[in-house]
Protein backbone atom coordinates (compact mmCIF):
# COMPACT_ATOMS: atom_id res chain seq x y z
CA UNK A 1 0.00 0.00 0.00
CA UNK A 2 2.69 2.37 1.13
CA UNK A 3 4.87 1.33 -1.77
CA UNK A 4 2.09 1.91 -4.26
CA UNK A 5 1.64 5.47 -3.07
CA UNK A 6 5.34 6.16 -3.35
CA UNK A 7 5.41 5.01 -6.95
CA UNK A 8 2.54 7.29 -7.61
CA UNK A 9 4.63 10.22 -6.42
CA UNK A 10 6.28 9.69 -9.78
CA UNK A 11 3.33 9.87 -12.18
CA UNK A 12 1.91 6.69 -13.65
CA UNK A 13 2.33 6.12 -17.38
CA UNK A 14 -0.18 4.50 -19.71
CA UNK A 15 2.32 2.70 -21.93
CA UNK A 16 6.08 2.33 -21.64
CA UNK A 17 8.78 1.12 -19.31
CA UNK A 18 9.35 1.59 -15.58
CA UNK A 19 12.84 0.95 -14.27
CA UNK A 20 12.60 0.46 -10.53
CA UNK A 21 15.08 -0.30 -7.75
CA UNK A 22 17.95 1.62 -9.31
CA UNK A 23 20.61 2.40 -6.69
CA UNK A 24 19.92 6.09 -5.89
CA UNK A 25 23.46 7.20 -6.73
CA UNK A 26 23.26 5.65 -10.22
CA UNK A 27 19.98 7.10 -11.47
CA UNK A 28 21.73 9.75 -13.52
CA UNK A 29 24.09 7.18 -14.99
CA UNK A 30 21.17 5.01 -16.13
CA UNK A 31 19.56 8.18 -17.50
CA UNK A 32 22.67 8.93 -19.51
CA UNK A 33 23.19 5.33 -20.70
CA UNK A 34 19.67 5.15 -22.07
CA UNK A 35 20.18 8.55 -23.70
CA UNK A 36 17.01 9.82 -22.07
CA UNK A 37 18.24 13.38 -22.45
CA UNK A 38 17.68 12.87 -26.20
CA UNK A 39 14.28 11.16 -26.16
CA UNK A 40 11.16 12.93 -27.37
CA UNK A 41 8.93 10.80 -25.11
CA UNK A 42 7.74 11.80 -21.66
CA UNK A 43 10.15 10.82 -18.90
CA UNK A 44 9.53 10.98 -15.15
CA UNK A 45 12.06 10.13 -12.55
CA UNK A 46 12.62 10.18 -8.84
CA UNK A 47 15.62 9.52 -6.69
CA UNK A 48 16.42 9.08 -3.00
CA UNK A 49 13.04 7.39 -2.56
CA UNK A 50 12.61 5.08 0.38
CA UNK A 51 13.01 1.40 -0.30
CA UNK A 52 12.62 -1.36 2.27
CA UNK A 53 15.05 -3.56 0.38
CA UNK A 54 17.73 -1.10 -0.70
CA UNK A 55 17.51 1.91 1.61
CA UNK A 56 17.38 4.62 -1.00
CA UNK A 57 16.40 3.91 -4.56
CA UNK A 58 15.66 5.64 -7.80
CA UNK A 59 12.95 5.08 -10.36
CA UNK A 60 12.59 6.11 -14.00
CA UNK A 61 9.43 5.96 -16.13
CA UNK A 62 9.59 6.37 -19.89
CA UNK A 63 6.43 6.62 -21.99
CA UNK A 64 5.94 4.63 -25.19
CA UNK A 65 9.40 3.13 -25.11
CA UNK A 66 10.46 -0.50 -24.73
CA UNK A 67 14.04 -1.69 -24.53
CA UNK A 68 16.04 -4.40 -26.30
CA UNK A 69 18.03 -6.99 -24.34
CA UNK A 70 21.26 -5.25 -25.25
CA UNK A 71 20.07 -2.10 -23.53
CA UNK A 72 18.87 -4.03 -20.50
CA UNK A 73 22.39 -5.46 -20.22
CA UNK A 74 23.73 -1.94 -20.12
CA UNK A 75 21.55 -1.14 -17.13
CA UNK A 76 22.73 -4.25 -15.30
CA UNK A 77 26.27 -2.93 -15.25
CA UNK A 78 25.42 0.13 -13.14
CA UNK A 79 22.15 -1.02 -11.56
CA UNK A 80 22.36 -4.78 -10.99
CA UNK A 81 19.36 -4.67 -8.64
CA UNK A 82 17.05 -2.91 -11.10
CA UNK A 83 13.65 -4.25 -12.18
CA UNK A 84 12.25 -3.55 -15.62
CA UNK A 85 8.50 -3.30 -15.80
CA UNK A 86 6.69 -3.08 -19.10
CA UNK A 87 3.43 -1.14 -18.84
CA UNK A 88 0.66 -1.51 -21.38
CA UNK A 89 -2.59 0.37 -20.86
CA UNK A 90 -1.71 1.19 -17.22
CA UNK A 91 -1.26 -2.53 -16.44
CA UNK A 92 1.95 -4.38 -15.66
CA UNK A 93 2.52 -6.39 -18.82
CA UNK A 94 5.82 -7.98 -17.79
CA UNK A 95 8.38 -7.61 -15.04
CA UNK A 96 11.99 -8.74 -15.24
CA UNK A 97 14.98 -8.30 -13.00
CA UNK A 98 18.03 -7.23 -14.93
CA UNK A 99 20.77 -9.82 -14.84
CA UNK A 100 24.45 -9.28 -15.21
CA UNK A 101 25.43 -10.76 -18.56
CA UNK A 102 28.42 -13.11 -18.94
CA UNK A 103 29.67 -11.07 -21.87
CA UNK A 104 28.90 -7.67 -23.32
CA UNK A 105 29.44 -6.08 -26.68
CA UNK A 106 29.75 -2.46 -27.67
CA UNK A 107 28.59 -0.90 -24.41
CA UNK A 108 31.77 0.01 -22.55
CA UNK A 109 35.05 1.40 -23.81
CA UNK A 110 38.20 -0.59 -23.11
CA UNK A 111 40.28 1.17 -20.48
CA UNK A 112 43.52 0.33 -22.30
CA UNK A 113 44.40 3.23 -24.65
CA UNK A 114 46.60 0.86 -26.66
CA UNK A 115 43.79 -1.63 -27.26
CA UNK A 116 42.85 -2.25 -30.89
CA UNK A 117 39.26 -1.21 -30.07
CA UNK A 118 40.57 2.28 -29.32
CA UNK A 119 42.72 2.41 -32.45
CA UNK A 120 40.61 0.85 -35.22
CA UNK A 121 36.89 0.62 -35.93
CA UNK A 122 36.25 -2.44 -33.78
CA UNK A 123 33.26 -3.08 -31.53
CA UNK A 124 34.37 -3.73 -27.96
CA UNK A 125 33.70 -7.14 -26.44
CA UNK A 126 34.26 -8.18 -22.82
CA UNK A 127 33.91 -11.17 -20.58
CA UNK A 128 32.18 -10.05 -17.36
CA UNK A 129 34.01 -11.16 -14.20
CA UNK A 130 33.52 -10.53 -10.52
CA UNK A 131 36.46 -10.10 -8.14
CA UNK A 132 36.81 -11.45 -4.59
CA UNK A 133 34.71 -8.62 -3.19
CA UNK A 134 31.91 -9.17 -5.71
CA UNK A 135 32.78 -6.09 -7.76
CA UNK A 136 32.26 -6.27 -11.49
CA UNK A 137 35.17 -6.12 -13.86
CA UNK A 138 35.52 -6.62 -17.58
CA UNK A 139 38.17 -8.66 -19.38
CA UNK A 140 38.71 -7.37 -22.92
CA UNK A 141 38.27 -10.03 -25.61
CA UNK A 142 40.98 -8.32 -27.69
CA UNK A 143 43.76 -6.93 -25.50
CA UNK A 144 42.90 -9.19 -22.51
CA UNK A 145 43.29 -6.27 -20.09
CA UNK A 146 40.89 -5.73 -17.20
CA UNK A 147 38.62 -2.69 -17.01
CA UNK A 148 37.51 -2.13 -13.40
CA UNK A 149 34.16 -0.75 -12.38
CA UNK A 150 35.73 2.62 -11.53
CA UNK A 151 37.22 2.89 -15.01
CA UNK A 152 34.15 2.00 -17.02
CA UNK A 153 33.26 4.57 -19.65
CA UNK A 154 30.01 3.96 -21.52
CA UNK A 155 29.54 4.74 -25.19
Amino acid at each position, binding site marked *: MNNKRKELIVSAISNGTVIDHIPAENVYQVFKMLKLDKTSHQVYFGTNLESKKYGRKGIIKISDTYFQDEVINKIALVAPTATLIEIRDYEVYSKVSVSIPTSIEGIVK*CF*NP*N*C*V*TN*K*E*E*VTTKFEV*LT*DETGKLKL*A*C*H*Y*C*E*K*ITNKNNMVFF
Partner: protein
Amino acid sequence: MKNRSLVSINDYSKEEIIRILDLAEEFEKQPLQNLLGGRVVASLFFEPSTRTRLSFETAIQQLGGNVIGFASAASTSVSKGESLKDTILMVANYSNLIVMRHPVEGSARYASEVSSVPIINAGDGANQHPTQCLLDLYSIRKTQGTLDNLEVTFVGDLKYGRTVHSLVIALSQFNTKFHLVSPEELKLPSAVKRHIKEAKLSYEQYTDFTDVIPKSDIIYMTRIQRERFPDPLEYEKVKNAYILENAMLDNSKDNVRILHPLPRVNEISTDVDQNPKAYYFQQALNGVFVRQALIATIMGVK
Protein backbone atom coordinates in the same frame (compact mmCIF):
# COMPACT_ATOMS: atom_id res chain seq x y z
CA MET B 1 44.44 -27.22 -34.87
CA LYS B 2 44.57 -27.17 -38.67
CA ASN B 3 43.64 -23.75 -40.05
CA ARG B 4 43.15 -22.37 -36.53
CA SER B 5 44.83 -19.11 -35.56
CA LEU B 6 47.15 -18.92 -32.56
CA VAL B 7 46.66 -15.53 -30.94
CA SER B 8 46.98 -16.20 -27.25
CA ILE B 9 48.55 -19.17 -25.49
CA ASN B 10 45.18 -19.87 -23.84
CA ASP B 11 43.83 -20.74 -27.29
CA TYR B 12 45.62 -24.10 -26.89
CA SER B 13 44.77 -26.82 -24.43
CA LYS B 14 47.46 -28.65 -22.50
CA GLU B 15 47.27 -31.56 -24.97
CA GLU B 16 47.61 -29.25 -27.95
CA ILE B 17 50.66 -27.57 -26.42
CA ILE B 18 52.27 -30.95 -25.82
CA ARG B 19 51.53 -32.01 -29.39
CA ILE B 20 53.42 -28.96 -30.72
CA LEU B 21 56.37 -29.62 -28.39
CA ASP B 22 56.56 -33.28 -29.47
CA LEU B 23 56.54 -32.23 -33.10
CA ALA B 24 59.23 -29.61 -32.41
CA GLU B 25 61.46 -32.42 -31.14
CA GLU B 26 61.13 -34.09 -34.53
CA PHE B 27 62.14 -30.88 -36.28
CA GLU B 28 65.12 -30.50 -33.99
CA LYS B 29 66.37 -33.88 -35.23
CA GLN B 30 65.49 -33.16 -38.86
CA PRO B 31 64.97 -29.43 -39.52
CA LEU B 32 64.95 -29.54 -43.33
CA GLN B 33 61.63 -30.98 -44.44
CA ASN B 34 59.98 -29.80 -47.62
CA LEU B 35 56.42 -29.93 -46.35
CA LEU B 36 55.04 -26.62 -47.60
CA GLY B 37 55.99 -27.18 -51.25
CA GLY B 38 56.31 -23.48 -52.05
CA ARG B 39 53.18 -22.33 -50.25
CA VAL B 40 53.27 -18.66 -49.28
CA VAL B 41 53.44 -17.43 -45.71
CA ALA B 42 53.13 -13.70 -45.04
CA SER B 43 55.38 -12.20 -42.40
CA LEU B 44 53.95 -8.84 -41.37
CA PHE B 45 56.11 -6.99 -38.87
CA PHE B 46 54.35 -3.69 -38.20
CA GLU B 47 56.94 -3.27 -35.46
CA PRO B 48 60.55 -4.29 -35.94
CA SER B 49 61.84 -7.45 -34.26
CA THR B 50 65.02 -9.11 -35.37
CA ARG B 51 65.01 -12.35 -33.45
CA THR B 52 61.37 -13.32 -33.80
CA ARG B 53 61.16 -12.37 -37.46
CA LEU B 54 64.33 -14.19 -38.50
CA SER B 55 63.31 -17.22 -36.49
CA PHE B 56 59.92 -17.37 -38.23
CA GLU B 57 61.37 -16.79 -41.68
CA THR B 58 64.01 -19.48 -41.11
CA ALA B 59 61.28 -21.87 -39.97
CA ILE B 60 59.20 -21.16 -43.10
CA GLN B 61 62.14 -21.64 -45.45
CA GLN B 62 63.28 -24.86 -43.75
CA LEU B 63 59.77 -26.16 -44.39
CA GLY B 64 60.05 -25.32 -48.08
CA GLY B 65 57.67 -22.35 -47.94
CA ASN B 66 58.02 -18.90 -49.46
CA VAL B 67 57.94 -15.67 -47.43
CA ILE B 68 56.34 -12.40 -48.41
CA GLY B 69 55.92 -9.41 -46.15
CA PHE B 70 57.67 -6.49 -44.50
CA ALA B 71 60.00 -5.88 -41.59
CA SER B 72 58.60 -2.51 -40.56
CA ALA B 73 55.42 -0.61 -41.27
CA ALA B 74 57.26 2.52 -42.45
CA SER B 75 57.54 1.52 -46.11
CA THR B 76 54.01 0.12 -46.47
CA SER B 77 50.48 1.28 -47.12
CA VAL B 78 49.98 1.37 -43.34
CA SER B 79 52.02 4.58 -43.29
CA LYS B 80 49.47 6.01 -45.75
CA GLY B 81 46.75 5.41 -43.19
CA GLU B 82 45.40 2.05 -44.33
CA SER B 83 43.41 0.31 -41.62
CA LEU B 84 44.64 -2.95 -40.15
CA LYS B 85 41.56 -4.69 -41.48
CA ASP B 86 42.24 -3.63 -45.07
CA THR B 87 45.89 -4.64 -44.84
CA ILE B 88 44.97 -8.07 -43.51
CA LEU B 89 42.25 -8.65 -46.11
CA MET B 90 44.66 -7.75 -48.87
CA VAL B 91 47.50 -9.96 -47.59
CA ALA B 92 45.09 -12.87 -46.96
CA ASN B 93 44.47 -12.86 -50.72
CA TYR B 94 48.14 -13.53 -51.40
CA SER B 95 49.05 -16.02 -48.69
CA ASN B 96 48.07 -19.25 -46.95
CA LEU B 97 49.08 -18.10 -43.46
CA ILE B 98 49.88 -14.75 -41.83
CA VAL B 99 52.49 -14.25 -39.12
CA MET B 100 52.08 -10.80 -37.59
CA ARG B 101 53.76 -8.59 -34.98
CA HIS B 102 51.92 -5.37 -34.18
CA PRO B 103 52.40 -2.71 -31.47
CA VAL B 104 48.66 -2.48 -30.70
CA GLU B 105 47.23 -4.88 -28.11
CA GLY B 106 44.43 -7.08 -29.39
CA SER B 107 45.39 -6.46 -33.04
CA ALA B 108 46.14 -10.14 -33.66
CA ARG B 109 42.79 -11.29 -32.24
CA TYR B 110 41.03 -8.74 -34.42
CA ALA B 111 43.05 -9.81 -37.48
CA SER B 112 42.10 -13.45 -36.84
CA GLU B 113 38.44 -12.43 -36.92
CA VAL B 114 38.63 -10.63 -40.26
CA SER B 115 41.17 -12.82 -42.05
CA SER B 116 40.25 -15.75 -44.30
CA VAL B 117 43.59 -17.44 -43.55
CA PRO B 118 44.91 -18.34 -40.09
CA ILE B 119 46.97 -15.83 -38.09
CA ILE B 120 49.96 -16.54 -35.87
CA ASN B 121 50.51 -13.78 -33.34
CA ALA B 122 54.20 -12.90 -33.16
CA GLY B 123 53.56 -10.34 -30.42
CA ASP B 124 50.79 -7.76 -29.96
CA GLY B 125 52.00 -4.83 -27.88
CA ALA B 126 52.37 -5.77 -24.22
CA ASN B 127 49.73 -8.47 -24.51
CA GLN B 128 50.68 -11.91 -25.84
CA HIS B 129 53.58 -13.62 -27.53
CA PRO B 130 52.48 -17.25 -27.76
CA THR B 131 55.35 -18.60 -29.89
CA GLN B 132 57.88 -17.25 -27.39
CA CYS B 133 55.82 -19.06 -24.80
CA LEU B 134 55.95 -22.33 -26.75
CA LEU B 135 59.71 -22.08 -27.08
CA ASP B 136 60.01 -21.33 -23.36
CA LEU B 137 57.93 -24.41 -22.62
CA TYR B 138 60.03 -26.45 -25.01
CA SER B 139 63.20 -25.25 -23.27
CA ILE B 140 61.79 -26.07 -19.84
CA ARG B 141 60.70 -29.54 -20.88
CA LYS B 142 63.99 -30.24 -22.61
CA THR B 143 66.10 -29.26 -19.61
CA GLN B 144 63.85 -30.69 -16.88
CA GLY B 145 62.45 -33.71 -18.70
CA THR B 146 58.92 -32.65 -17.72
CA LEU B 147 56.63 -29.65 -17.46
CA ASP B 148 54.73 -30.93 -14.44
CA ASN B 149 55.22 -29.99 -10.78
CA LEU B 150 58.14 -27.59 -11.25
CA GLU B 151 59.08 -24.60 -9.11
CA VAL B 152 59.44 -21.69 -11.50
CA THR B 153 60.81 -18.31 -10.46
CA PHE B 154 60.09 -15.21 -12.51
CA VAL B 155 62.32 -12.21 -11.90
CA GLY B 156 62.19 -8.54 -12.90
CA ASP B 157 59.44 -6.77 -14.81
CA LEU B 158 56.42 -8.99 -14.29
CA LYS B 159 53.96 -6.20 -15.02
CA TYR B 160 54.81 -5.34 -18.61
CA GLY B 161 56.69 -8.46 -19.68
CA ARG B 162 54.34 -10.20 -22.11
CA THR B 163 56.54 -13.30 -22.26
CA VAL B 164 56.04 -13.64 -18.51
CA HIS B 165 52.27 -13.31 -18.85
CA SER B 166 51.98 -15.96 -21.56
CA LEU B 167 54.29 -18.38 -19.75
CA VAL B 168 52.54 -18.01 -16.39
CA ILE B 169 49.19 -18.67 -18.07
CA ALA B 170 50.53 -21.74 -19.89
CA LEU B 171 52.30 -23.17 -16.83
CA SER B 172 49.08 -22.83 -14.85
CA GLN B 173 48.02 -26.00 -16.68
CA PHE B 174 51.03 -27.97 -15.37
CA ASN B 175 50.73 -27.77 -11.58
CA THR B 176 53.55 -25.25 -11.28
CA LYS B 177 54.59 -23.56 -8.05
CA PHE B 178 55.20 -19.92 -8.91
CA HIS B 179 57.75 -17.63 -7.26
CA LEU B 180 57.27 -14.06 -8.41
CA VAL B 181 60.15 -11.68 -7.74
CA SER B 182 59.73 -8.02 -8.68
CA PRO B 183 59.77 -4.49 -7.36
CA GLU B 184 56.42 -3.36 -5.91
CA GLU B 185 55.75 -1.26 -9.01
CA LEU B 186 56.18 -4.15 -11.42
CA LYS B 187 54.17 -6.97 -9.85
CA LEU B 188 52.28 -9.50 -11.95
CA PRO B 189 48.91 -7.98 -13.00
CA SER B 190 45.70 -9.41 -11.56
CA ALA B 191 44.50 -10.33 -15.06
CA VAL B 192 47.34 -12.86 -15.20
CA LYS B 193 47.17 -13.99 -11.57
CA ARG B 194 43.56 -14.91 -12.19
CA HIS B 195 44.75 -17.88 -14.28
CA ILE B 196 46.91 -19.16 -11.39
CA LYS B 197 43.99 -18.81 -9.02
CA GLU B 198 41.55 -20.48 -11.40
CA ALA B 199 43.90 -23.46 -11.61
CA LYS B 200 44.01 -23.49 -7.78
CA LEU B 201 47.80 -23.25 -7.72
CA SER B 202 49.94 -21.40 -5.24
CA TYR B 203 52.19 -18.44 -5.86
CA GLU B 204 54.38 -16.31 -3.67
CA GLN B 205 55.51 -12.77 -4.31
CA TYR B 206 58.89 -11.43 -3.21
CA THR B 207 60.78 -8.20 -3.54
CA ASP B 208 64.03 -9.92 -2.63
CA PHE B 209 65.66 -12.35 -5.00
CA THR B 210 68.25 -14.37 -3.04
CA ASP B 211 66.13 -16.65 -0.82
CA VAL B 212 64.18 -18.15 -3.66
CA ILE B 213 67.14 -19.29 -5.80
CA PRO B 214 67.80 -22.62 -3.98
CA LYS B 215 64.16 -23.69 -4.43
CA SER B 216 63.95 -23.04 -8.15
CA ASP B 217 63.97 -25.51 -11.04
CA ILE B 218 63.74 -22.69 -13.55
CA ILE B 219 64.74 -19.05 -13.11
CA TYR B 220 63.13 -16.88 -15.78
CA MET B 221 64.92 -13.51 -15.90
CA THR B 222 63.54 -10.35 -17.54
CA ARG B 223 64.80 -6.87 -18.09
CA ILE B 224 63.59 -3.94 -16.01
CA GLN B 225 63.25 -0.93 -18.27
CA ARG B 226 63.88 2.59 -17.08
CA GLU B 227 60.89 3.96 -18.98
CA ARG B 228 58.50 1.86 -16.87
CA PHE B 229 59.11 4.14 -13.89
CA PRO B 230 57.40 7.53 -13.77
CA ASP B 231 59.87 8.56 -11.07
CA PRO B 232 63.52 8.08 -12.14
CA LEU B 233 64.51 7.87 -8.49
CA GLU B 234 62.42 4.73 -8.07
CA TYR B 235 64.24 3.13 -10.97
CA GLU B 236 67.62 3.93 -9.44
CA LYS B 237 66.53 2.22 -6.22
CA VAL B 238 65.60 -1.09 -7.86
CA LYS B 239 67.81 -1.30 -10.93
CA ASN B 240 70.57 -3.32 -9.26
CA ALA B 241 68.35 -5.43 -7.01
CA TYR B 242 67.43 -7.94 -9.69
CA ILE B 243 70.76 -8.83 -11.25
CA LEU B 244 71.77 -12.47 -11.32
CA GLU B 245 75.46 -13.09 -10.65
CA ASN B 246 77.24 -16.40 -10.90
CA ALA B 247 78.06 -16.60 -7.18
CA MET B 248 74.33 -16.43 -6.38
CA LEU B 249 73.90 -19.84 -8.03
CA ASP B 250 76.26 -21.59 -5.56
CA ASN B 251 73.41 -23.05 -3.52
CA SER B 252 71.08 -23.67 -6.43
CA LYS B 253 69.77 -27.06 -7.49
CA ASP B 254 71.81 -29.06 -10.01
CA ASN B 255 68.91 -29.14 -12.44
CA VAL B 256 68.15 -25.40 -12.36
CA ARG B 257 68.35 -23.59 -15.67
CA ILE B 258 68.38 -19.85 -16.31
CA LEU B 259 66.08 -18.64 -19.08
CA HIS B 260 65.73 -15.16 -20.56
CA PRO B 261 63.67 -14.09 -23.58
CA LEU B 262 66.58 -11.81 -24.68
CA PRO B 263 67.83 -9.20 -25.39
CA ARG B 264 69.70 -9.08 -22.13
CA VAL B 265 71.24 -5.85 -20.89
CA ASN B 266 72.79 -6.23 -17.45
CA GLU B 267 70.26 -8.32 -15.52
CA ILE B 268 72.31 -11.48 -16.00
CA SER B 269 75.93 -10.81 -15.30
CA THR B 270 78.19 -12.12 -18.11
CA ASP B 271 80.01 -14.42 -15.68
CA VAL B 272 76.83 -16.57 -15.65
CA ASP B 273 77.22 -17.29 -19.39
CA GLN B 274 79.93 -19.94 -18.77
CA ASN B 275 77.85 -21.70 -16.11
CA PRO B 276 76.23 -24.87 -17.48
CA LYS B 277 73.03 -23.71 -15.77
CA ALA B 278 72.76 -20.82 -18.26
CA TYR B 279 70.38 -21.80 -21.03
CA TYR B 280 69.28 -18.54 -22.66
CA PHE B 281 71.24 -18.88 -25.90
CA GLN B 282 70.08 -22.46 -26.59
CA GLN B 283 66.59 -21.27 -25.67
CA ALA B 284 66.63 -18.84 -28.61
CA LEU B 285 67.65 -21.60 -31.04
CA ASN B 286 64.70 -23.75 -29.95
CA GLY B 287 62.41 -21.05 -31.36
CA VAL B 288 62.98 -22.21 -34.94
CA PHE B 289 61.91 -25.82 -34.25
CA VAL B 290 58.85 -24.78 -32.28
CA ARG B 291 57.76 -22.41 -35.04
CA GLN B 292 58.28 -25.12 -37.66
CA ALA B 293 56.06 -27.42 -35.62
CA LEU B 294 53.40 -24.74 -35.26
CA ILE B 295 53.36 -23.72 -38.93
CA ALA B 296 53.30 -27.36 -40.10
CA THR B 297 50.39 -28.06 -37.75
CA ILE B 298 48.31 -25.06 -38.76
CA MET B 299 48.96 -25.70 -42.45
CA GLY B 300 47.83 -29.28 -41.96
CA VAL B 301 50.99 -30.87 -43.33
CA LYS B 302 51.95 -32.62 -40.06
